[in-house]
């Protein structure tokens, strides 16, 4: 029993980290551009499909495929930002509507090009490790490591580099930042693109874990939003923590309770936390 629980704790954390990377994108975009980019789910899906294409069709090594996918998605993010999101800065709902439109466009295009037949990558890293009687798939551990690395790096970048500080300053107080000479528009573009790239990375790694369908993004973006809120929006490490908490709650929840309510378990937790700390678990008052 205890083994079962520990195993699911670990698995929940890994699954949650994948929520976390998208949540990070959500948090950053919201902090800097004031919109919630639901389309990140769609970008994640793109990342997954690009990776599949590079790895299966073009026979590239997986890491190369991943990098390629991330870059491509980043480019799409750039187009989306210059072409669309630029016009909905700091307008939460209009941004929301644009991302809804974007989702239907991206999903339908993928369906048109790659059809509804599910894609499943040749296993990148088959086999599992047995750690104290718990069987953990190697690939999941690898993905987990990469996610932690990227999120950690982002955190450092935000706290150590100039761009990062500028971004942080901006999210705290736009006017002041502008006075400090932060080029608002460029900053917002940079962050939007970075966020979509993060989404793309999430998708690229996702592709090595699960099968691909054009609709896979919707599920993850909702989890990501929950995670971002749970930890307190605007909090880098919080995104990861939030994701992991949701992942674990769902995992443990569906061990002891019906799987049918899986999505509910995370939400109950979310609501409880927000009620006792309206600014989120790690959010500052």
């Amino acid at each position, binding site marked *: 029993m205890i083994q079962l629980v520990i195993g699911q704790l670990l698995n929940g954390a890994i699954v949650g980290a994948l929520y976390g990377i998208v949540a990070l994108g959500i948090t950053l975009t*919201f902090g800097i551009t004031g919109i*919630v980019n639901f389309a990140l789910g769609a970008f994640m899906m793109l990342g997954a499909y690009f990776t599949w294409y590079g790895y299966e069709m073009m026979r590239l090594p997986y890491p190369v495929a991943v990098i390629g996918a991330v870059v491509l998605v980043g480019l799409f993010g750039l187009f989306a930002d210059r072409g*669309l999101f630029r*016009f*909905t800065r700091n*307008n*939460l*709902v*209009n941004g*929301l*509507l*644009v991302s*809804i*439109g*974007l*989702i*239907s*466009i991206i*999903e*339908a*295009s993928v*369906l*048109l090009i790659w059809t509804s037949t599910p894609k499943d990558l040749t296993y990148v890293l088959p086999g599992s490790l047995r750690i104290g009687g718990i069987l953990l798939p190697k690939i999941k551990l690898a993905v987990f490591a990469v996610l932690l690395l990227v999120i950690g790096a982002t955190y450092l970048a935000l706290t150590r580099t100039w761009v990062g500080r500028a971004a942080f300053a901006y999210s705290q107080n736009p006017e002041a930042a502008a006075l400090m000479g932060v080029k608002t528009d460029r900053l917002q573009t940079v962050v939007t693109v970075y966020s979509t790239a993060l989404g793309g990375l999430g998708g690229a790694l996702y592709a090595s874990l699960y099968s691909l369908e054009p609709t896979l993004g919707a599920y993850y973006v*909702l989890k990501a*939003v*929950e995670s971002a*809120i749970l930890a307190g*929006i605007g909090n880098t490490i919080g995104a990861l923590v939030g994701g992991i908490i949701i992942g674990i709650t769902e995992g443990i929840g569906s061990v002891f309770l*019906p799987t*049918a*309510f899986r*999505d*509910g378990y995370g*939400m*109950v937790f*979310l*609501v409880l936390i*927000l*009620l006792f700390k*309206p600014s*989120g678990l790690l959010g500052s008052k």
Partner: protein
Amino acid sequence: MTRIIPIVAFASAVVAPLLIRSDSTFAIITFGFLLAALAVSFNLIFGFTGQLSFFHAAAFGVAAYMTAILVSDYGWSFWAAIVPALLAVGLLALAVGAICFRFKLREFYFAVVTMAFSEMIRLVVVNWNSVTNGTLGMTVTAQPTLWLPTGSISLTGARTWYYVALLILVATYIICHRVLASWIGRCFAAIRLNEQLGETLGVNIFMYKLLSFVLGSTLAGLTGCFYGFYTGFIEPQYLSITQSLDIVAMVLLGGVNSLFGPVIGGMLLTALPHAINLTAELRIILYGAILIFVIIVMPSGIFGLFSRPRHAV
């Protein structure tokens, strides 16, 4: 301008059936009316009180299910069933709203928590098979009868439902209009624009937020009560987040800062998919493109072009 358009529009809607031949056009417009009614009540909470609620679909669905269940499983009369259904929705909204507002959840936080609550409700509906028949949905065969001085007619057939739906829309519209024209509207405006100031002017922010949320959700419930009996079928998807997002889209497309905007948005978004005559994927791509185009070209929605900036009175 803003005063005339609604009157003209509703008046023309009354005579329109003379021109309409096709049954499916009736269906599209009827759906349009019902969804527009949802959009209008949603805008009471969102556009006029500034609270982005994702509870609307849940409110709509709960009412739809309750009336359907009471009528088909417990043999209630449709009109009697509406009362407990609306009561239930009202109480649910009261509970959810009270929690959110008491704990001062703002903007996006409020949005996500209401989303969470409506998802939980959906999960209950999906899994409570014995009562809701779960994911298979419920077939509603009963047809409510309406007693008129000229005699009783049963609500069936495209034309009848066209007018029923129109009636619901107009009723919702008028209720919202009256509320917004009253002192309540002024309090909503205060909440939307500057809570702190409103409070120092003696406005009970908590109470009026709650009022807006409960009233809006209950009106959504009203539409829900009829919806199931029009389509003859209800399924849990009616409570899903996507439905709430559709409503948001309608409101934004039509124009947030007017009462009539959402009517336009609702009608257009309902008709749009059927107006596009393309293969499946292209149809959806075009749909998305139109959404984006409209909101970028007219950030304040279609009706935003006609309506002067909102006044508190």
